[in-house]
């Protein structure tokens, strides 16, 4: 196995404008080039280029060994990735839709997540699972779920969920370099979203660090994935009336509670905007951690924006009804500011 120590040098700060999809693909390409232990596997990631086109062109560039099409058997290839990670290679698995984790949950929860601990540290688990989440495409309930709360909740797994193109690239690369199992949750509605992305091939985003995407004084919005962009737009539209700070949580486990709590100490108000179902999940965790760290700084009840514990329906008007949006964030800000 090759060494994975990061070379020490100043990063080139040059950026390029690109979409989230291109940023992830660039991150994958750079890691495939950097480390020959790294390879991609999943359903249709090769010749097809990925059903949502994230891996497009990589099979042509790197070939069958490095970009592997698997049979449609999530338990089989998730388990194989786990066994492969434990024996010296660094698989990067694409789970086409996060809903399909249901098919592979045994290998995820009982093997991938537990082997290192059960074995007393005698197994490394450098596996990355990339998967898509979220509604908005009319894809109905089995292709629109947001399951990151399950994975972030389950001990032994790390979970990241980028909201910008730069974070998407940086977190993908950090996940691949990590010796821990990391799930990267890509919201499918932001693949076309553009942003400035560092082009330095040593650029990574440390797992466990949130990003203050917009500074403000009156209200803190902690958002994830698609809701980062929508919250930023909402914050802009309210500029002059309310000063809104927007934080991209980025890393759900571990969670950067320090950055969030520091913001709440400044603003005294917190809104948590995440597409997962509202009950027992990501929102609850962020709220609980903030009240542990900054309870006496709160000037108003914390507000939660999420999917109201429904599945994602097919029909567009129904889907729009349940999906959280920037309007929901605006209403929440107006309630507390």
């Amino acid at each position, binding site marked *: 196995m090759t060494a994975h120590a990061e070379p020490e040098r100043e990063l080139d700060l040059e950026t390029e404008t690109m979409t989230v999809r291109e940023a992830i693909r660039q991150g994958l390409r750079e890691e495939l080039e950097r480390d020959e232990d790294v390879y991609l596997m999943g359903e249709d990631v090769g010749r097809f280029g990925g059903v949502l086109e994230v891996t497009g062109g990589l099979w042509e560039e790197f070939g069958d060994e490095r970009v592997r099409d698997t049979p449609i058997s999530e338990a089989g290839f998730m388990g194989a990735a786990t066994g492969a990670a434990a024996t010296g290679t660094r698989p990067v698995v694409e789970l086409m839709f996060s809903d399909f984790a249901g098919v592979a949950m*045994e290998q995820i929860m009982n*093997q991938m997540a537990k082997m290192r601990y059960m074995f007393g540290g005698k197994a490394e688990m450098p596996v990355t699972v990339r998967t898509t989440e979220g509604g908005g495409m009319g894809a109905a309930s089995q292709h629109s779920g947001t399951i990151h709360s399950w994975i972030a909740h389950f001990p032994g797994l790390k979970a990241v969920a980028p909201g910008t193109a730069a974070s998407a690239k940086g977190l993908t690369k950090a996940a691949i370099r990590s010796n821990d199992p990391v799930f990267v949750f890509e919201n499918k509605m932001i693949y076309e979203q553009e942003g400035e992305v560092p082009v330095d091939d040593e650029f990574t985003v440390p797992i466990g660090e949130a990003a203050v995407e917009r500074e403000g004084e009156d209200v803190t919005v902690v958002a994830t994935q698609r809701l980062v962009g929508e919250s930023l737009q909402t914050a802009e539209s309210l500029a002059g009336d309310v000063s809104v700070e927007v934080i991209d949580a980025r890393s759900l486990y571990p969670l950067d509670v320090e950055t969030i709590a520091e913001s709440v100490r400044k603003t005294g108000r917190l809104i948590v905007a995440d597409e997962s179902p509202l009950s027992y999940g990501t929102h609850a965790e962020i709220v609980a951690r903030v009240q542990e760290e900054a309870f006496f700084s709160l000037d108003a009840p914390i507000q939660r924006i999420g999917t109201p514990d429904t599945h994602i329906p097919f029909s567009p008007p129904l889907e729009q009804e349940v999906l959280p949006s920037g309007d929901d964030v605006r209403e929440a800000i107006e309630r507390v500011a």
Partner: protein
Amino acid sequence: MAEYDLETETGRREALRRMLTIRAFDEEAGDRFADGEIPGFVHLYIGEEAVGVGTCAALDPDDYIASTHRGHGHCISKGLDPKYMMAELYGKAEGYCNGKGGSMHIADVDAGMLGANGIVGAGPPLATGAALSIDYDDRDQVAVGFLGDGAVAQGQTHEAINLAATWDLPAIFVVENNQYGEGTPVENQHNVDNLSDTAQAYDIPGLTVDGMDVTAVAEAVAEARSRARAGEGPAIVEAKTYRYRGHYEGDEEPYRDDEEIERWKDRDPIDSFKERLIERGELTADEFDEMRADAEETIEEAVEYAQNADQPQPADAYEDMFAETPPEIERFAEAARTRADGGRDRQGGEQP
């Protein structure tokens, strides 16, 4: 080269020694569990020794195995030290998994042992993954996934074998057909007489051998290994064997009768191998008795080692979760270390 080759006299004696060690280990583990010294569940391998030892006789020391619920025999076949195994059964810090795994999870990845497994059918995907690493790096190894007859009915087993077959990976799936999936007879769980028949669906070789005959198992696995190393993909070897004890210790076994157990014991894998070595003039009855006494002594020493080994410290509960421990866990580890130092817990958060 194999650690013990059944084509040589020393190899055959070593195989017999390992089978005796497995039997002594599991008889002792059963007794100590009954005495209440060993916590949790214990699943014994007694009766099946020829399968683990025959398989590992055909492997090189750096080949991988992924095991089952009934993993003690696989560990000893692979060369793991009974002392640290027993310490693990006792939940001690000196166990293979620092007391975090217990009987169902003994592992030593560096020794090629990818873990006993508490989930039926979970080992084959891991073996396929190890075979993927081997193939990817072009290493001269194979990976064996052990599975019971019950696991043949599991979906992930099929997915793993299909994936290994599709990619021509150097994997071998050894089905230990011990006649019962927990408490249900094999004929009530499958519609085929030989579980190796499933190999047809993957277009790979499937062979059923006498699992009470260590040589037959070794020959079949050796052939599968040569094929796998030649890049021709996986094979299924079904070894028909018998579990002398219940599914777990304490199982009252309402599902079978003593007459059936006695019929299988007449073909005991250790006795029959001993007889063969005596016939060949490679062993005397006295030497066998001596060998068995040595094995029993080794296990008595292992028990003594386990009994006297250190308990893990409370702070150890927070180790080994991740390569990089997140603050969510580290704060508990710190608190446990502080308690161990006789200090006070830190209070987190801001105060009014």
